[in-house]
């Protein structure tokens, strides 16, 4: 038996569940068999606004295998008047079949349940629903009179200094509008849940980003005792912010209750586009004013996003300016407008991803105006303290990222003039941008057991949505217990393990590692060296609520410097990324192997955001054109060149493991780096994403 091995954190380990994933043995939510399982298929509205007049269930109930049709006329009433674990009320899109209103296209109106998926699908497609149609309004544009400032998870507006006076006095001013389109998570595994009643308890086998979070929401919504609901979510095929409480779990619970049989509801790829959230399009205005030396005197960042008529979601794109840059006059605001569209939600890098595109592209424009290198301009404007909060940073190693990144990328050799490098039919350019994302932690509980056989079992309601959290926690527990990782077994994804934070906001691994470390360290103190462990083991539980509450107020963020080289085809307008480099200061890196995947994956999302992703809403019917993976383009193999991610030493001294969080910072600034490189290649600024070939051709600059 191995003894007293330390130092697993910081070394590369393949995923502990990796073998199961490469052999197909890992079972995801829709793949766990149950005796007597039946299948539910959702029916979505075909109108964008109106009222349901009738649901013609009769003919469908007579179809082979059909067991029931749930709709607003027969579904149980739900409680939606609460604020959940994440501090927000539930999105009514998930609280299905509560009234006859249709607030957007693709709104859930019925669930057909049948013995087989084929029977359920055919019946669902045959179900006739009639509507009273009302005019819909789906258009987002700057200056909408019904837009309003909204807080979200941060103040709507921050303001200091006299913006107009400073701008008027500045040698260099940039005043530009940027837009980003509607973007979708498009994780590979569709949302799926199986619900059943077992011995008076509701069991839900699900795919989500937080088992206790979803269990808590279900208990509140169905007015059940918290202990009467168990949610399991062992393997999750991607989440990116979308996998919380959705229509599939709620409708499955309703049907399982009505039929007293296990009911599985799996969303189709098309249904996901209106039921599972998305990143709102944004319209952003950035005004920057600088003196001759490039030092900012004025900064304004305003962002407008859309939300549904039933749920308010703020995409806080202006928030990034509150962290990145200071100025004598500094104003930021986030506004929303309510439209007849589906509810948006968190999507990888919420706020920061679109916000950094606007702010970092504007910074590149300012660098051009000032005649200062874009890296140097950022170094000159690297603040000592939080620009809005005035708080100290818990480490801001952005300058180190830029210096190391510039060295490795070969930035010093760059000719700053745009549109001057050509290779055959390709125009070449390079660009850079800064990245940041908040480092947070959510209260969590964990249990660590010393087993009689000398192994250890960790139980925590964590979620490994592909981040490698299960493996990271194994390494963290091993170090805290001073044993080799192969003696530690980490069990996750079960709400019965007690409350824990979600896999979201780059907070998962940090939140859970804190709880696991606390329990493991206390357990180690209790174990007598050489002493026997009883057959039931020795278990210690932890709860980080108090420790997190005592944490000093600081600006806690991960940072990074992004570099991209692009080639622009002068004939077709196609933009191809040739290479990317990101250097990050993102806390202590627990597992370099999986961390690289997180950061490179985020950067690849940035390529995809810059060049491919765009969900287009049809004005006439209010839904999306091509709501599928052929119509909604995400980057695939051929779009992704050599993408390198690395990091500088940056442990957070206030975190027991030194973690900051790496899930989102990789996408931040990545699209701006690509867009800035396109300007460098062509001499034309592209302020509207994605940078499609037709936009490149229409904008000109390719005739150089």
């Amino acid at each position, binding site marked *: 038996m191995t003894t007293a091995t330390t130092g697993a954190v910081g070394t590369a380990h*393949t*995923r502990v*569940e*990796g*073998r*199961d*994933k*490469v*052999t*197909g*043995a890992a*079972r*995801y939510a*829709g*793949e766990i*068999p149950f005796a007597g399982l039946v299948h539910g298929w959702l029916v979505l509205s075909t109108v964008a606004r109106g009222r349901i007049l009738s649901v013609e269930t009769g003919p469908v109930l007579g179809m082979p295998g059909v067991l029931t049709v749930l709709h607003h006329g027969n579904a149980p009433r739900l409680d939606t008047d609460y604020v959940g674990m994440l501090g927000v009320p539930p999105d009514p899109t998930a609280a299905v079949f509560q009234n006859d209103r249709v607030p957007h296209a693709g709104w859930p109106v019925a669930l057909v349940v049948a013995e*087989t*998926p*084929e029977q359920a699908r*055919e019946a669902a497609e045959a179900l006739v629903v009639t509507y009273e149609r009302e005019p819909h309004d789906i258009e987002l544009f700057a200056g909408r009179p019904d837009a309003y400032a909204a807080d979200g998870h941060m103040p709507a507006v921050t303001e200091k200094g006299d913006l107009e006076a400073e701008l008027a006095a500045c040698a260099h001013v940039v005043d530009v509008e940027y837009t980003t389109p509607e973007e979708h*998570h*498009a*994780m*590979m*595994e*569709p949302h799926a849940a199986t619900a059943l009643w077992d011995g008076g308890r509701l069991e839900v086998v699900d795919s989500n980003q937080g088992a206790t979070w979803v269990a808590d929401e279900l208990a509140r919504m169905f007015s059940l005792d918290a202990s009467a609901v168990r949610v399991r979510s062992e*393997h*999750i*095929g*991607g989440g*990116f912010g979308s996998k919380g409480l959705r229509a599939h779990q709620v409708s499955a619970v309703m049907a399982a209750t009505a039929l007293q049989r296990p009911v599985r509801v*799996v969303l*189709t*790829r098309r249904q996901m586009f209106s039921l599972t959230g998305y990143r709102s399009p944004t319209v952003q205005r950035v005004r920057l004013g600088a003196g001759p030396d490039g030092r900012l005197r004025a900064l304004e960042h305003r962002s407008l996003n859309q939300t549904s008529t039933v749920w308010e979601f703020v995409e806080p794109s202006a928030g990034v300016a509150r962290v990145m840059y200071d100025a004598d006059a500094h104003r930021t605001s986030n506004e929303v407008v309510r439209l007849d569209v589906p509810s948006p939600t968190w999507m990888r890098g919420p706020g920061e991803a679109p916000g950094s595109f606007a702010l970092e592209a504007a910074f590149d424009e300012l660098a051009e105006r000032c005649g200062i290198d874009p890296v140097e301009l950022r170094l000159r404007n690297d603040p000592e303290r939080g620009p809005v909060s005035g708080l100290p940073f818990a480490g801001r190693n952005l300058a180190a990222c830029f210096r190391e990144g510039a060295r490795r990328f070969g930035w010093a050799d760059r000719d700053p003039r745009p549109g001057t490098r050509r290779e055959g039919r390709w125009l070449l350019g390079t660009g850079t941008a800064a990245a940041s994302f908040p480092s947070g932690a959510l209260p969590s509980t964990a249990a660590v057991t010393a087993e009689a056989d000398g192994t250890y079992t960790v139980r925590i309601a964590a979620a490994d*949505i*592909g*981040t*490698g959290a299960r493996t990271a926690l194994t390494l963290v527990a091993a170090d805290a217990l001073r044993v080799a990782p192969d003696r530690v077994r980490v069990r996750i994804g079960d709400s019965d393990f007690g409350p824990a934070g979600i896999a979201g906001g780059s907070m998962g691994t940090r939140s859970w590692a804190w709880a696991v470390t606390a329990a493991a360290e206390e357990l180690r103190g209790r174990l007598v060296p050489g002493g026997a462990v009883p057959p039931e083991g020795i278990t210690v539980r932890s709860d980080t609520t108090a420790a997190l509450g005592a944490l000093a107020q600081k600006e806690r963020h991960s940072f990074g410097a992004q570099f991209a080289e692009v080639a622009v085809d002068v004939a077709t307008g196609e933009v191809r990324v040739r290479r990317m480099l990101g250097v990050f200061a993102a806390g202590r890196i627990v597992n370099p*192997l*999986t961390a*690289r*995947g*997180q950061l*490179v*994956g*985020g950067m*690849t*999302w940035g390529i*995809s955001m810059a060049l491919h992703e765009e969900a287009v809403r049809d004005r006439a019917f209010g839904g999306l054109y091509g709501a*599928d*993976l*052929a119509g909604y383009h*995400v*980057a*695939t*193999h*051929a779009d*992704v060149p*050599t*993408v390198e991610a690395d990091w500088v030493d940056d442990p957070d001294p206030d975190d027991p493991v030194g973690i900051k969080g790496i899930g989102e910072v990789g996408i931040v600034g990545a699209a701006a780096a690509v867009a800035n490189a396109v300007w460098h290649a062509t001499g034309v600024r592209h302020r509207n994403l994605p940078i499609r070939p037709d936009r490149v051709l229409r904008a000109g600059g390719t005739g150089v």
Partner: protein
Amino acid sequence: MAPPTSSSVTLNINGEKHPLSVDHRTTLLDALRERLDLTGTKKGCDQGQCGACTVLVDGRRTVSCLQLAVASDGREITTVEGLADGDRLHPVQQAFLDLDGFQCGYCTPGQICSAVAVIEEHAAGWPSAVTGDVRPEAGPPPLTPEEIRERMSGNLCRCSAYVQIVEAVARAAAEHRGETERAVA
């Protein structure tokens, strides 16, 4: 009398014969997942756009969501569950594991099945859209990262493990070439 809505077929999967009565609407993908409990093959879009359901049918890559079970009668089907040799992983599986060619793992069985076929297709001299010299006598082009990316582009990975997948496919292909050369020698 109403025409029949189901048929008896024999699905030959990973070397094992499965006699089955299937609804004519059932895809090969749903037959694997819902009827035979072979859930390694994943359903990402159910409309042939993501590649997660890729299996090998008579040795060729096929998206099993676009093939009906009744059309699969008697054909040789290999799924991700049929690649390993007992406890010994297929070289492609081992390379994905070692080089972290996945994150959430949901596209992984499709990526792996696709990669197994890519290596065979390339070795057999099939060109791709980025192959420079497509004359039959030119022989297989070097299996560069660009060739791998082009040939693997039907398999989406939203976690975006593309860089690591390409590394894994390259390593497995190099091992495959080594084995082939040893066998020839």
